[in-house]
């Protein structure tokens, strides 16, 4: 019977092409606008590393002396000082952790064949690759020995490897970052994340860095950050050495804690570390505070999805509702015009449910068609977003779940629009129309 209803729907659509097109177009426009904003929102809000987002934690310490204020809800600085990052990493505790900060270099091969190009880089320790599960095409992360004793090593991205070495295995080859030579130890896949969740301080939707070098290089080459640096007290800065022992915060610190027990133990370790630092004259405050937020908590804390994004999605759904209201009017006109035919069907034995279902199926066919056309309009909208702002390149796209959601939302919207007209027409009393036919 369902196929029969679909057949009847198709005939009805063919018999009223203008009104049917208007309805399909109305739902398509509504779905197109809604799916454009919803897709961006979905990409922003999706768990970036779902299988372990609850295990990877971001460390925050309350480094300020009593009476100072930070511009966060919990008064905690968003980043760590260099000295705290190094101390936490070097502490004798069995966890995977890594400090990190963003910088950049002119990358070249010191030959005339390849032009130098500015690339963003990240200083990390070898555990960073394990924590964030970076897949390697060639080689792997540097060793502890490299990190401690021969730190002029680099992990490059696939794109950089393509540009410098035509995609060939470049392990052991040398590249130059500014004027310093580094040995390639690994080539990773390009990191095409939607949200740069491991460093939201410097633009949560910026692209990933193309190079990774050991954190230990920072003091050796006096590498500055390309990210935010903040302080809470006046400090004399005469050089890089002053910076790395200052209270300026400019590094991020991630730790992998696999179980609640491990998290608890690490919390105790952090508290002990802060007590120790307090005894050395830092953290001059009554209450010592730390924070361990997992990936999703960290994204929420930083309000990666702003209120504006939510309002935009809400507005697009309201627009869809306006489209639904228009479709409702058109459906009312169309269905009520068909009341005489419904009267005949009712006289010949159709139940109210059968009439209702017939019309709901027709509405669904219109909704589904509108949904498919809406996907095309949404693709156009997303292309427009990508073209106007490259910052949203990775976000302005529809994944499979959104592609499936579009017709589902269209069906739901059309169902909402068709409910009243279908209910009204199924109540048709056959006797009224049979004589007047």
């Amino acid at each position, binding site marked *: 019977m369902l196929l029969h209803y679909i057949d009847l729907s198709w005939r009805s659509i063919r018999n009223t092409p203008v009104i049917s097109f208007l309805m399909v177009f109305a739902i398509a426009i509504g779905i197109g606008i809604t799916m454009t904003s919803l897709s961006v929102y979905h990409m922003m809000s999706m768990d970036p590393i779902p299988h372990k987002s609850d295990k990877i934690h971001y460390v925050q310490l309350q480094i300020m002396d009593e009476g100072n204020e930070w511009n966060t809800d919990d008064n905690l600085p968003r980043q760590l000082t260099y000295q705290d990052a190094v101390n936490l990493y070097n502490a004798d505790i069995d966890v995977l952790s890594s400090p990190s900060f963003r910088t950049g270099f002119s990358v070249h091969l010191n030959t005339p064949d390849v032009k130098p190009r500015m690339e963003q880089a990240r200083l990390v320790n070898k555990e960073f690759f394990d924590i964030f599960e970076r897949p390697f095409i060639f080689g792997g992360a540097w060793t502890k020995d490299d990190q401690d004793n021969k730190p002029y090593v680099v992990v490059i991205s696939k794109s950089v490897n393509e540009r410098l070495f035509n995609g060939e295995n470049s392990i052991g080859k040398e590249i130059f970052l500014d004027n310093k030579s580094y040995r390639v130890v690994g080539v990773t896949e390009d990191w095409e994340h939607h949200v740069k969740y491991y460093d939201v301080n410097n633009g949560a939707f910026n692209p990933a860095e193309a190079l990774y070098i050991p954190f230990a290089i920072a003091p050796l080459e006096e590498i500055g950050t390309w990210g935010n640096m903040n302080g809470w007290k006046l400090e004399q800065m005469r050089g890089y050495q002053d910076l790395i022992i200052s209270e300026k915060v400019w590094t991020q610190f991630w730790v992998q804690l696999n179980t609640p027990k491990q998290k608890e133990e690490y919390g105790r370790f952090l508290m002990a570390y802060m007590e120790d630092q307090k005894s050395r004259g830092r953290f001059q405050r009554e209450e010592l505070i730390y924070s361990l937020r997992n990936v999703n908590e960290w994204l929420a804390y930083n309000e990666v999805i702003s209120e504006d994004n939510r309002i935009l999605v809400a507005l697009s759904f309201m627009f869809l509702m306006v489209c639904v209201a228009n479709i409702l009017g058109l459906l009312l006109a169309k269905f009520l015009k068909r009341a005489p035919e419904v009267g005949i069907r009712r006289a010949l034995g159709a139940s109210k449910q059968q009439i209702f279902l017939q019309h709901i199926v027709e509405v669904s066919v219109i909704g589904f068609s509108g949904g498919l056309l809406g996907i095309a309009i949404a693709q156009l909208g997303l292309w427009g977003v990508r073209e106007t702002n490259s910052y949203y390149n990775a976000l302005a796209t529809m994944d499979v779940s959104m592609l499936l959601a579009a017709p589902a939302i269209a069906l739901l919207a059309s169902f909402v629009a068709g409910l009243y007209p279908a209910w009204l027409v199924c109540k048709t009393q056959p*006797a009224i129309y049979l004589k007047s*036919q």
Partner: protein
Amino acid sequence: MLKMQNISKVYQTDSVQTHALRDFSLEVKEGEFIAVTGPSGSGKTTFLNMAGILEPFTSGHYSLDGIDVGGLSDNQRADLRNQKIGFIFQGFNLIPDLSLFENVEVPLRYRGVPAKERKKRIEECLEQVGLASRAKHLPQQLSGGQQQRVAIARALAGKPRFLLADEPTGNLDTLMARQVMELLEEINRNGATIVMVTHDPELARRAPRNIQVVDGQLADFTLYQGVPEASQPVVDTRIKAEV
């Protein structure tokens, strides 16, 4: 087959009550062919709507083939119409977007008849009304008489035991009307009970039993034999004379 006892139908509009049927009682036996006549506005169509379970009555008792219609839900009424009753209307009431085949198929679909059986039954019915070769045509491609024959085929498709015809020849010329009437007589001879509303005295004369509806009440020429005269309804003598 059909038994109505003291059926009343009152239409209420604002403060005005219109009594379309008053204490209407009628019994139709299996295999009868009854012509229902009466002046315009007398309640013939209301009676037909009641008999066809197309709308509920206000009071009284009505049983069709032993089933008490008054206690049925809307869906049960639809089911009973589908199972027991065939309808033939003055305006044919074919669905214009459907072919003849599909029009005849409508009641069978709602009955849930399997496709193969449906096809066989539809072909038989269209054959019976002489339109098998035009099964794929749309109603508007046929003459009025042909359309009415399709409507008859549709009414017959479900093999109903009870056929209700409302002015089945009202929109047809004399020749076509005669053909349709002959078809109805043949259907009746095959065992179907037919109640036909008509304005045409000639057609009414061809039915074995005539009843007249006047002011929502029944005048029957044959049913009330043996019933005390005081209890009999008033008879329209003009029609009686013709019978």
